[in-house]
């Protein structure tokens, strides 16, 4: 089975976000980039799918040369091949998904894994977008997955519980924490990944549908009140919540 996993290269969660002088992007100075945390689960599930059915796992990312670092990490975890859809333009999710789905039409996988969301723009759109471009099925926020023949049974997280979803291949799955325990790259994996090539291809072009007007920082909360240092503060806290904040 041919398996495609799409990964993103994003600022580390502890990064301080500074807005660049153009007011519509972030200042990348001193920012440490990592493999999008949810994509670890997507890669792990792709590798497990290969272990079950045989075949190969191709990892793909759309972006600049920096994305190679993330592709290299995916290779060291055990992906077989990597493709960089090289593109330096500003793209929204729609346009990225278009290019990824055009690539999928060339590679012809039976299943595509993505992460639940990119932790930079928090869009959570890629799974449904790619699937619909390809006219495939999709299941988002998946925490349990079972593929038998062409039948797919997945469990997804919803408010207050889980939904068990029945679907079929070909399919795009978005991976949520809990789906699996991502493996760490082994020393052997790291050595081998250095020998695996990263192919570069141009990304298919598609117009954006979202225009970024400006970025802003949240207004800092005026520093809160420390009500006290012990049990004697409890009465006052309850009074404030009831009378001032009116939330209880």
């Amino acid at each position, binding site marked *: 089975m041919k398996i495609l996993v799409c990964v993103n290269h994003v600022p580390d*969660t*502890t990064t301080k*976000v500074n*807005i660049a002088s153009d007011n519509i992007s*972030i200042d990348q100075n001193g920012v440490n980039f990592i493999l999008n945390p*949810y994509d670890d689960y997507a890669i792990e599930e792709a590798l497990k799918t290969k272990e079950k059915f045989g075949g190969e796992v191709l990892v793909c990312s759309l972006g600049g040369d920096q994305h190679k670092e993330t592709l290299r990490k995916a290779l060291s975890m055990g992906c077989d091949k990597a493709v960089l859809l090289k593109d330096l333009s500003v793209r929204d*999710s*729609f346009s990225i*998904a278009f290019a990824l789905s055009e690539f999928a039409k060339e590679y012809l996988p039976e299943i595509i894994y993505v992460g639940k969301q990119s*932790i930079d*723009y*928090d869009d*959570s*759109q890629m799974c*449904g*977008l790619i*699937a*619909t*471009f390809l006219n495939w*099925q*999709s*299941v*988002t926020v998946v925490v349990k997955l079972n593929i038998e023949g062409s039948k797919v049974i997945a469990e*997804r*997280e919803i*408010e*207050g*519980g889980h939904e*068990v*979803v*029945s*679907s*079929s291949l070909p399919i795009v799955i978005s991976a949520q924490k809990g789906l699996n325990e991502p493996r760490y790259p082994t020393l052997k994996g790291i050595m081998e990944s250095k020998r695996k090539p990263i192919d570069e291809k141009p990304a298919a072009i598609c117009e*954006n*549908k*979202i*225009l*970024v*007007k*400006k*970025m*802003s*920082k*949240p207004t800092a*909360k005026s520093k*809160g*009140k*420390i*009500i*006290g240092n*012990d049990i004697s*503060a*409890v009465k006052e*806290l*309850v009074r*404030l*919540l009831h009378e001032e*904040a009116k*939330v*209880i």
Partner: protein
Amino acid sequence: MKILVFAEQRENQFKKTAFEVCNAAIKLGLELNSEVVGLVVGESVSQIASKLGGFGIKKVFVVEDPRLKNYSTSAYSTIINQIIEKESISILFLSASAMGKDLAPCLSVKLNAGVASDCTQLKIEDGKIIATRPIFAGKSFVDVEITSDKKIFSLRPNVFTAGIASNETAEVLKFEVELLEKDFSTIVTEVKQSTNKKDVAEADIIVTGGRGLKEPENFLMIEKLADSLGAAVGASRAVVDAGWRPHDEQVGQTGKTVSPSLYIAVAVSGAVQHLAGMSSSKYIVAINKDKEAPIFNVADYGIIGDAFEIIPALTDEINKLKSH
């Protein structure tokens, strides 16, 4: 410019977020001088559909079919797509809930429409709709305009007010959609409810416990406080990773994003990844014995002290207040 609101229901009951979305759409509709119509999809939803009139919606379409009892990505998106085409709708509003987030991108491609997802604010500038959405887990905001003719906005739950329903009822119209077998290619076969538990993603009050509680048994104290407030119990990643609490209670970057009216953080340090999930709460209370804990930077009210003393006392005090 006609606006459609997809009003989410489960088990024939509207979600609170459905009303939030109605309210936000009506407001925008007034400013744009556009008609706002509703859509309810399910097994037999005609009964509840007229309720949307209480939020200002005059006309509601229903699509009913026993096969639509449970959610189906493929069938629901086919239905919404068809109604948008037939009724010449240009703007779709839905909730950025599990269902809304699943539907929006599928509709985006079908309708060739851009999606502004998880919006926390909507405004009109020079006749254009500008949506504000949090990025980098709330560390920053971005204002976006959708440039395609058709536009989709998903609204973050608990941010827009639902308001109080009036007695008005909406006109309910059946919308006929021919659903083929292939439209049910992806379908929910079972919903596994977590045992009657309130979900942090929907709760109006949340009490979260952190690693400072030392042992899983001590969460009993947190549960009691939550009960006294009718609140949901939340957890930091440290306690979820330790196996003390289930993952569906985790708040933060890799857990759930919440914005309740009251968030009480007990023995939680307030790491950036935790703050990412809860800093947009309306009121935040922090109880921590370390006065340097970063949670105090976002708290409206704080007590620097020992949770084991303060939480039982707080629970008693709230029970007293409630019994008045």
